[in-house]
């Protein structure tokens, strides 16, 4: 009896080790699959065109050169203009910062009202706003283009900020609402008894409690707005385009020799801000991704 059980544990131990090895091999293979495009982008951006033509896709650069990066940043052609990504990168910054701040502030106020100051119809209003998160934006492109024209802000950065704030409100409200419903309503009642009013309770009690959800919302909105292409390409014109549109123009311009190293350098430049946010604040990034989809 004793021998048999000894045998069994020995066998299962062996099986367990093999299983662990297979597990780690699989996990590593998947990691390589996810890393391959990043690896290829970085190495290609550091090669000369000559080396790209003669060498292999996954080989390390024989000679590292930053020429492609310089061209991508300052002189690559996005159509008829050849100023690189730089001006468009700043367009994206000028666009994303106010749009993120405004939509977050509005979301915080809305979420505060919907979660803590319920009035008749507040739930219906919240449902209507929530639904706005799910519409395919194609359904509002045509009237929005006309409206921006009528308002005189078609093709401008303020126009794009306006669009991003409007269609960001649904998500930011959802984030803050789901966060604030977990705060007991006794808090508001007690503060009211103490004579604090609506805005003071928000400012002195709720806002200081909201740091985590503010971080989540800011990261979510920043990623959305920085990475947006549809609104950018529909509502901008030469000179006001965001970085994603300029990147696409560089990559898909048909004139001249295809400079793959410049394409890759430009793609990395366009991706750097959101990648940086992800590396620095990955925890909050993931929380934002799951906040909208897992029941709060």
């Amino acid at each position: 009896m004793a021998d048999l059980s000894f045998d069994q544990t020995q066998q299962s131990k062996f099986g367990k080790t093999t299983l662990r090895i297979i597990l780690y091999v699989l996990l590593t293979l998947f990691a390589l699959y996810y890393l391959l495009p990043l690896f290829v982008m970085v190495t290609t951006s550091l090669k000369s065109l000559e080396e790209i033509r003669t060498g292999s896709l996954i080989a390390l650069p024989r000679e590292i050169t930053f020429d492609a990066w310089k061209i991508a940043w300052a002189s690559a052609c996005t159509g008829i203009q050849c100023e690189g990504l730089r001006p468009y990168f700043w367009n994206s910054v000028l666009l994303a910062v106010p749009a993120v701040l405004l939509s977050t502030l509005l979301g915080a106020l809305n979420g505060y009202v919907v979660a803590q100051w319920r009035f008749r119809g507040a739930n219906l209003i919240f449902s209507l706003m929530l639904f706005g998160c799910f519409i395919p934006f194609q359904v509002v492109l045509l009237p929005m283009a006309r409206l921006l024209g009528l308002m005189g802000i078609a093709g401008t950065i303020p126009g794009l900020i306006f669009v991003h704030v409007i269609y960001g409100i649904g998500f930011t409200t959802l984030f803050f609402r789901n966060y604030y419903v977990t705060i007991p309503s006794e808090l508001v009642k007690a503060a009211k008894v103490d004579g604090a009013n609506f805005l003071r309770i928000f400012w002195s009690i709720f806002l200081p409690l909201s740091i985590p959800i503010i971080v989540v919302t800011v990261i979510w909105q920043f990623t959305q707005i920085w990475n947006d292409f549809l609104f950018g390409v529909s509502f901008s014109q030469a000179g006001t385009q965001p970085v994603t549109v300029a990147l696409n123009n560089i990559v898909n311009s048909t004139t001249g020799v295809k400079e793959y190293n410049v394409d890759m350098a430009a793609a990395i430049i366009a991706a750097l801000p959101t990648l940086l946010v992800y590396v620095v604040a990955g925890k909050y990034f993931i929380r934002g991704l799951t906040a909208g989809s897992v029941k709060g």
Partner: protein
Amino acid sequence: MEFPMSEWLENHLPKIVLAPSFIAVLVFVYGFIGWTAWVSLTRSKLLPKYEIKGFIQYEKLFASPRWDTAFENLFVFGALFIIIAMVVGLLLAIMLDQQIRTEGLIRTIYLYPMALSMIVTGTAWKWILNPGLGLEATIKGWGYNDFSFDWIVNSEMAIYTIVLAAVWQSSGFVMALFLAGLRSVDGEIIKAAQVDGIPTWRIYTAIIIPSMAPIFLSAFIVLSHLAIKSFDLVIALTGGGPGYSTDLPATYMYAMAFSRGDIGQAASSAMIMMLVVFTIVVPYLYSELRTKNDG
């Protein structure tokens, strides 16, 4: 006199604060959907016309071979993308749930594509899939001269390159969802099952996975939503080509609205997209809001 006024203000302040956002959503979401719906029933071409002519735009739409391809692509792409991303996501989540020492690092690697713009993803994969210089050329260079991987320039296969890149971008996110789900399963039940000697794979298939049904639903909703909205990825990866073999409703709509100057077709195709989203999302939102109100 001043006191009642400020009291009125204080009582109505929550509504006043919510009002601008509510009005904005009413006008810019619902009003605009109404406008698009209206225009889709007219003969609008370069400029919108407001005289209703019935369903002529929709008849024209479904008679157009380009729309046929786009609409069919949506279901081919959507089904493959959703199924593969879910399977890969679940597999990765279960593998990562086995007390992996480097879990944090691996999770970071699997999830970073979600932080990238689809334009960046499309640019990278377009380069990798380039038959002359990319993966195909590399493997040929290793001596496998017959190796061929030219999907991106092959109108029969190009749609699958979109699936490949989309799965690359989103499967890490599905993994994160499922991993959160796996971790939220009651540990006591699992321990009890282990004490009873039930094998691990049975614990997963019989206990853990069935209890994650809501997460499957969430993942499905998010992925189908991503699939319908896919626009940037197609533009950057294939530009809808070769020909219009990788067109999706989103790229069709954009082409009609901004390069063909056919507002009627753009509006009617947008409405069809809206309908597809409706049929998927509305039942979900309804059940979601109802359970939340009950709870």
